[in-house]
């Protein structure tokens, strides 16, 4: 039973990751490979607030969200001046540079040694979020808030404007919309929420190191989103469920652990290839990337 709770917490972390990425990739058709970098920045900033400033939960979370979204401007500004493949390459460059900094700036981030012993966040002074059930509730609350907010965004004029950009950017400009500003807003909001996942991961696992936030992780998050589905609320949720539960299913049918990791990856690869050919909008999504 406890293991199930643990899985749900992981699923919640990934729902926030995929839902946030959906704003960029699904709603605006901006295929960014920099999610894991922002996820990592959110995690490390949370650790900074918790272990150096000794802040309680809410200031830590807000600090991480705000600074991560500001740093995402470093990603947005150069990338948005480029189109198509060059844009993807720029986000790739951002991802790699951030990883290299996290990995090599040992004096600040402890590099590959990672940061152990991340304390439990304290809510309103005394209430410590400690133990499986507390994190379960915390992650649930955060997931519900995030999904609710994104649902509102998707069905708002802002969401409609983003959909217009992905459909026909030229027309949007001709209709008087500041397309660049809208894209930057999408980046900033998406990053702020990815930081929430970073906070959750850091506090739940109590140990972080840069290898959790590398290019492979970006590809993983993107795959989860694409497989689950783009453009709506269901898709990212299904995507998170699939990537967290698939390993469990494999274990259930008796696959030995030594090959499980590789078999799992092969299944993801196949899923991507098959879906892109036959159902590019993903299992439960309503939009196919262009």
């Amino acid at each position, binding site marked *: 039973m406890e293991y199930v709770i643990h899985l749900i917490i992981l699923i919640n972390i990934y729902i926030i990751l995929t839902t946030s990425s959906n704003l960029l990739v699904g709603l605006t058709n901006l295929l960014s490979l920099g999610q894991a970098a922002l996820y990592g920045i959110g995690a490390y900033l949370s650790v900074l607030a918790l272990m150096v400033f000794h802040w309680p939960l809410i200031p830590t979370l807000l600090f991480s969200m705000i600074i991560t979204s500001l740093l995402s401007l470093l990603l947005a500004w150069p990338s948005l001046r480029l189109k198509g493949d060059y844009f993807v390459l*720029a986000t790739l460059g951002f991802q790699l540079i951030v990883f290299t900094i996290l990995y*090599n700036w040992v004096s600040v981030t402890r590099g590959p040694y990672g940061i152990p012993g991340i304390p439990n966040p304290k809510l309103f002074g005394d209430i410590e979020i400690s133990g499986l059930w507390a994190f379960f509730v915390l992650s649930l609350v955060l997931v519900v808030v995030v999904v609710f907010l994104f649902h509102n965004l998707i069905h708002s004029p802002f969401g409609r404007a983003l959909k217009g950009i992905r459909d026909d950017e030229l027309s949007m400009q001709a209709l008087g919309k500041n397309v660049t500003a809208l894209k930057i807003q999408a980046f900033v909001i998406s990053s702020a929420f990815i930081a929430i996942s970073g906070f959750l991961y850091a506090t739940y696992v109590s140990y972080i190191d840069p290898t959790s936030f590398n290019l492979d992780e970006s*590809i993983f998050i993107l795959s989860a989103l694409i497989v689950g589905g783009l453009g709506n609320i269901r898709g990212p949720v299904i995507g998170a469920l699939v990537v967290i539960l698939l390993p469990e299913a494999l274990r259930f049918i008796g696959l030995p652990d030594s090959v499980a990791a590789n078999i799992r*990856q092969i299944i993801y*690869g196949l899923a991507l290839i098959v879906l*892109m050919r036959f159902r590019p909008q993903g299992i439960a999504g309503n939009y196919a*990337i262009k």
Partner: protein
Amino acid sequence: MIWQFIVNGVITGMIYGVVALGFALVYNTTRIFHIAYAAIYMVAPYLLMFLFKGVGIPLLFSVILAMSGTVVIGMAVELLVYTPLIRHKSSSSVIMVSSIGAMIIIINVVALFAGNETKVINTEIAKSLKIGQVLITYTQLIQFVSSLLLFIAFFAFLKFSRFGIQTRAYRDDATLSAVLGLNTLRLRRILYILSSLFAGIGSCLIAWDVGMDPYVGMPMLLNAMVALIIGGIGRFEAPVLGGVLIGILQALVVYFTSARWQDAVTFTLLIIFLLFRPQGILGEKIRRV
């Protein structure tokens, strides 16, 4: 002392150039973001090791068979993944995501069979010779000569053969070439075969020196893409130039600071070029009809 680093950098850079050229053969002509190239790159030395060490085939034949096997695997990706999508008129992002899927499959199949650890093919200590202050191992010599021969052969072919002229026409304008009756499918397949071949040659040259593991593909692909951007997308000389420059740059970074900052400098250079000179050093505007 610095010359040792520079020479090392040039030789490594030439291999970067070989690998980047292979990527450019596909990207410049078809604009396919051929991420699976990383996996095709990685597979070759494993095939070589299996044939040479496992089965015991003499080295020369092992190399030929391994290269053929690499080409076959590359062709499998083209036939099973890219061709159906191109026929279906899928967008370039969809093709890129599928390419990532293919890469993931190939890497994990190799990891399943051969394990995740670093493997070595050549276990002898390489002899070396000294030119002035600089020490060059025999392996490095092979790397240098092989790359150089490959470049000479390729560029001569490009300039003088009919295939070469067709390739340049196709690179300049795919649509017009097709309209003018160029057999673009066959040309694309030939370029693809060459691409896989270059990847295989490059990776075996490196693996003979330092060994390999299933995850060497992506870092090398990243270097190749940076080389392509820095050199420029257009003429095929560009990725070679970009590769050598990156090789030298990385060597200098190691000389002046330490190996850990190589990547940061390389990718910062990528961003700088993307922002301020996206056409690269040998920049060329590509006209489209």
